[in-house]
Every structure is written in structure tokens, then in C-alpha cells.
């Protein structure tokens, strides 16, 4: 990526936005783009850096020039004078000394560590050295819980924190722990779901690679809270480096007595082992995962009974996602109130997203709960790389497709539910206008058809049909009526598939139809001379590929 030579920074905050800062920023971007300078000059929205009462301002770095009192019209002149002719435009120069922000530091919030909870150590400490984790207060949450808190108090704290599962379904974590804690009997299990099969999601891998002890500590805290003495990490076999580092971390924690018998002389015993999965997507579903752990084929179980009642070896089992567990040490150590103070009221804490697609800075970000998609693209991912935003898929392949209308909806469970969407696992795929909706849908449906475990009819056959229909829509050879069939299959999947693997593909289909129906309709060939579609099973077999 070529580094932009010059940076225009427009501070946008509550005060300046009211007087048109965003219009000014957009005008800069437009004008610079119009004159073909976009690859040399980048335009950034930054936080306030000092000057007040000067209207909308903009700083140009490295030139060290600050303009004040800007309006969109004045921007045109500045672009002309400053960037084309190469001399600062005197009329609106702001006089006086201004400590200017370093464009690289303010370039985007993406580069900042401040505010990270889950990823605070990632990229900073040596994951293979337990001492470095301890130096950053690692294992002190466990120490605190074991010395000052009852198991019930830990459950209570997690409940109060408002933490919800980060594996996709968003179930309140404290509530789940409470179910398991209330089960009697000495044999219970903690399972960390590290299967991470959702295409486009790789946050758990980076957490385990970068800070494995945080996951172990979260599991030990969970074990203490629910009364389990054994934990398993179910991890996909492809995650070689994560497995290696987790193994190493477990050994180091055992050597320090932070896992094993009588931890920190508290009488609490807890140990962790690793189970390696074979890569089936359905094995990320918690009951299929448990089957797989027991050495069987990964078929989802009927719920209820839930794993909290009868899970691994039919004993009470608490299954949580890696990221969920990695939030626990901070909650226990710093308290539920602190956690609630981060993020939005209805989504406390942060969320880790993997951001992919046509953005300037794909990668991993951790943001306060409730920021909008627009914020994520502009502030954390450096903006669109090329082209204009067309759509985003939120939450991996099972996630909904969002159109431009949804850019300003806060990304939290409730706000999304209100507009008929779900948050999902944390992958955000941003696409520009070069991606066709039917193309995209077909890629998703092929994936699901391939991963269906085959146990129930709606999913096994429905997904093959969706794959076939999206393939012909993509080729422009769809049949009249195909869209109605897709809608019908989506409804059947949603209502009749046995497990969420089969239910969730309805999401991309219905949301795509909601925002992009006209484009999908273009995939239909209306010429009457065509033969009728062959809907026999054999024809299907050749379609679905």
C-alpha cells in the first residue's frame, strides 16, 4: 500500500459536527478525488486537537498548516490553491501556534491499544512466557476469586457485568453459568469452544496465539464459579500455532501451580486438556461439539436437555467461546460496574471483530460495544480501499447482509434485533460495487450445502437447492419463480431445520432479498422459449456442485 504523502485532518466531535464538520471532510475527499489526488492525499476524521471557536477546522500535515472557519465552498478553493498550485491559502489560515496531532498516531483508532480488554496483551507480551502475563496482573483475578470470593459471588459478578456470549448466539454468560452452578453432583465440565469454523472469523485464533493464559485463567474462573474441576479446549486441528502455544501455556501454568491440585492453597483443583477437532463446521455447534469430544460423529443433539444439564459424558457442562472466556479475568478483577461502564448500556464491554474485504486496513479490531458500522469502516479500518460501500456481511457466512441503510445502526444485540438483524460471531466483510449479490449468495450457500451434516431433511436438501438456484441466478439463467422458491426454502429452513446450522442460512437469503431484490431479479431469464426447470433429484445433483 502506498503511503499517502499528505494528510488532511478534520476534527469531528459533537460540537463541530453540528456546524458541518462532516460536510467539510466529505467535500475535501470529493474534491481531492475529483482531481485525481486521492492516492497522494488522504482525508481523515480525527478527534478534537485544540482550537475551539474557530468554526470547522482542518490541519494539513506534514505542511503544518491549519485552516479555520471552513465551509464546503471554501474547501474547493483550498484544494485548488494548496494542493494543486502548492501554496497555502492565506484567507482562512488560523493564526497562532497549534500543537498538531501526529497523523500516524491519529490516523485511525485502529492503531490504538487504549480501551482494549481482550486484546490488551496481544502483540505486546511474549505468549510463551507466563511471567510476562503475570507482570500485567495475569492470574490475579483467579487469585482474587480464590481468596476473597465465593463461587456464587463470581457468578453474580458475571451476571451483573452484562457479558453476553461472543460465539454468535449472544446468550447472557452469567445466566448460563448460573444454570450449571445450580446443578448438583461433583462431576462437571468447562468447555472452551475454539472451533472457530465461521468463514472470515479468526479472532479466537489470534487471542489464543497472542495471550493464551487469559483463556486459561477465564476457564479456571469458570470452573471455580460452577464447581467443575476439569476443563477442555475444543480446537480445530488447523490452528497449529494456537495448539502449540496453549499446550505450552498449560504446562507453564501447571508448573507454577496455577492449574492442578489445590491452586494457591485454596483447596480448588482445576486442570485443562486440549481436544483437537477435525474441521467440520457443525462441530462448532455446542452439542455436536460435545458429541465429537466423546469420540462420536458430530451430530447435533436435541435440546433440551441443554449442556448445562447434560453435556459432556452427560454431566453438566458449560460451553463458552474463547472471547467470552477471555473477558472474564478483567470482569472479576475490575468488577462488573467497571465493565458496564465500557461500551453501550445494552452491550457492555467490547467486541472483537475481524474486518475483511475492501477496506484499507483489514485485520482485528476491538471496539466498545455499540459503535456503528460506519465508525468501524472509517475510524478503525481506515475507510474503503477502493470503490464505494455496497454491502457488508455481519457475523460470518451465516450472517445477514446489510445495505447502506444500515451503516448507522449501532452494532449491539438489541439495536440490531430491532431492525431484524443479528450480530453473529464477529466477522465483518465489507464489499464494494464490484461484488455481485448473486455471486456472493452462491458462495455462501455452497459452503452451507457442503457443511450440512445431513441429519435432517430441510437442511440437507434445502441448502443444495439454494446453492443450485443461486448458481443459475448468478449466471443470469434463473427461472421466473426462483425468488419465490428461495423465499419458501428460507422459511422452511428457519422453521424446520434441526439445528442452527440449517436455520441460519435463511439470514443471508432474506436480508439479500430485503436490500438487493432488483439486482437479484436481474438474474432471471424471462425468455419463454426455455425448457422448464428440471426439479428432479438427479438434476439437482448436477446443479449443486
Amino acid at each position, binding site marked *: 500500500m502506498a503511503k499517502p504523502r499528505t494528510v488532511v485532518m478534520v476534527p469531528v466531535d459533537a460540537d463541530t459536527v453540528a456546524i458541518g464538520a462532516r460536510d467539510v471532510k466529505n467535500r475535501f475527499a470529493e474534491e481531492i478525488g475529483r482531481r485525481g489526488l486521492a492516492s497522494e492525499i488522504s482525508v481523515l476524521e480525527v478527534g478534537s486537537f485544540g482550537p475551539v471557536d474557530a468554526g470547522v477546522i482542518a490541519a494539513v500535515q506534514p505542511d503544518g498548516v491549519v485552516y479555520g472557519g471552513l465551509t464546503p465552498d471554501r474547501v474547493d478553493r483550498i484544494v485548488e490553491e494548496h494542493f494543486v498550485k502548492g501554496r497555502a491559502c492565506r484567507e482562512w489560515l488560523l493564526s497562532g501556534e497549534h500543537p498538531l496531532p501526529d497523523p*500516524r*498516531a491519529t490516523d485511525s483508532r485502529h492503531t490504538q491499544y487504549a480501551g482494549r480488554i481482550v*486484546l490488551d496483551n*496481544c*502483540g505486546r507480551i511474549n*505468549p510463551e512466557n507466563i511471567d510476562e502475563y503475570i507482570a500485567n496482573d495475569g492470574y490475579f483475578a483467579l487469585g482474587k476469586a480464590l481468596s476473597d470470593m465465593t463461587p456464587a459471588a463470581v457468578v453474580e459478578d458475571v451476571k451483573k457485568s452484562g457479558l453476553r456470549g461472543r460465539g454468535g448466539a449472544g446468550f447472557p454468560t452469567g445466566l448460563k453459568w448460573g444454570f450449571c452452578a445450580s446443578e448438583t453432583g461433583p462431576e462437571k465440565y468447562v468447555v472452551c469452544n475454539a472451533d472457530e469454523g465461521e468463514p472470515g472469523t479468526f479472532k479466537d485464533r489470534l487471542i489464543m496465539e*497472542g495471550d493464551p493464559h487469559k483463556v486459561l485463567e477465564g476457564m479456571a474462573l469458570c470452573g471455580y464459579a460452577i464447581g467443575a474441576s476439569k476443563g477442555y479446549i475444543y480446537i480445530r486441528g488447523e490452528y497449529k500455532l494456537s495448539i502449540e*502455544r496453549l499446550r505450552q501455556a498449560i504446562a507453564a501454568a501447571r508448573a*507454577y501451580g496455577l492449574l492442578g491440585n489445590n491452586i494457591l492453597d485454596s483447596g480448588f483443583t482445576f486442570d485443562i486438556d486440549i481436544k483437537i477437532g477435525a474441521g467440520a463446521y457443525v462441530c462448532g455447534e455446542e452439542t455436536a461439539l460435545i458429541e465429537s469430544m466423546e469420540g462420536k460423529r458430530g451430530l447435533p443433539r436435541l435440546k433440551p436437555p441443554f449442556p448445562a444439564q447434560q453435556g459432556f459424558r452427560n454431566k453438566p457442562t458449560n460451553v463458552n467461546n474463547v472471547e467470552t472466556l477471555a473477558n472474564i479475568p478483567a470482569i472479576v478483577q475490575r468488577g462488573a460496574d467497571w465493565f458496564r461502564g465500557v461500551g453501550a448500556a445494552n452491550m457492555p464491554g467490547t467486541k472483537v471483530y475481524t474486518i475483511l474485504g475492501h477496506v484499507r486496513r483489514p*485485520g482485528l479490531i476491538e471496539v466498545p460495544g455499540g459503535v456503528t458500522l460506519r465508525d468501524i469502516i472509517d475510524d478503525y479500518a481506515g475507510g474503503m480501499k477502493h470503490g464505494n460501500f455496497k454491502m457488508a456481511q455481519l457475523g460470518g457466512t451465516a450472517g445477514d447482509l446489510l445495505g447502506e441503510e444500515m451503516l448507522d445502526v449501532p452494532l449491539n444485540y438489541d439495536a440490531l434485533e430491532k431492525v431484524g438483524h443479528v450480530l453473529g460471531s464477529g466477522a465483518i466483510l465489507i464489499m464494494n460495487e464490484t461484488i455481485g449479490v448473486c455471486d456472493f449468495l452462491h458462495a455462501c450457500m455452497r459452503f452451507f450445502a457442503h457443511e450440512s451434516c445431513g441429519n435432517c431433511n430441510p437442511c440437507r436438501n434445502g441448502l443444495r437447492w439454494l446453492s443450485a438456484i443461486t448458481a443459475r441466478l448468478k449466471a443470469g439463467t434463473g427461472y421466473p419463480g426462483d425468488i419465490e422458491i428461495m423465499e419458501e426454502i428460507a422459511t422452511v429452513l428457519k422453521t424446520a431445520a434441526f439445528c442452527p446450522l440449517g436455520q441460519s442460512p435463511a439470514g443471508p437469503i432474506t436480508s439479500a432479498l430485503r436490500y438487493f431484490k432488483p439486482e437479484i431479479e436481474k438474474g432471471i431469464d424471462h425468455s419463454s422459449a426455455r425448457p422448464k426447470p428440471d426439479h428432479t433429484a438427479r438434476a439437482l445433483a448436477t446443479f449443486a456442485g
Partner: protein
Amino acid sequence: MKNLEELRKIRDEARKTMDLRSGNQRARVVVCMGTCGIAAGARDTMQAFMESLEEAGATDVAVTAAGCAGFCDQEPLVEVEIKDGSTVRYGHVDAAAAQRIVKEHLMQGKVVESLVFSQGA
């Protein structure tokens, strides 16, 4: 380890070694070695740092590995922390870039501007 007191001791010891101000190290180089970092060549980068530092005779610079910082498109990513408190993150650091960083930043104290990804925490 038998109790919280011992855990505290380990923490304080570890902090001392990690904190440049209290140690005898003048700088620290942290190479991101997550899967994406390694795939982008971080092992070669690490190797190049070790070799160039040895060549330069710098025994007071620590080189360590860390996990992924999340800036996947910048890999191999390297953080250079100097005793005076400044921290610079460099992106796309291949072996040649590593040699430059050793020569200019670590030995002569001049940040290699053209390779900087971000500065400060």
C-alpha cells in the same frame, strides 16, 4: 507456587525485567509472530534483527516475540521501544528493513520514517 504472595513476587520480578527503565537493556524489539505474521515472513525478520544486532555489537537490545496485534495488513509488524519511553511500530518489515531499523533507529537514534506504521501507545 503456594499463595498469592508468591504470585505477587513473580509479578514484581517480571515487571522489573520487562520495564526498560529498571533493567540494563536500552531498547526492546518486539516482533509479532501470530500465524499471519509468520506467514508474512516474521521468522526471517526476527532472524535479521538478531544477526544485525550481533553484527553491530549491540548487546543491550532485547528481541522478543509476541502474538498478533491485530494489524494484519501490516505484517511483519515490529514494535521498537526505547528506554526514553518512545515506542514506534513499523509495518512490512522484511530482512532489509530490519537491518535499516537496527542501523538507523537502534544504533543512531533516528526513526526510519518511511517504514513507520504508528507511533505512541
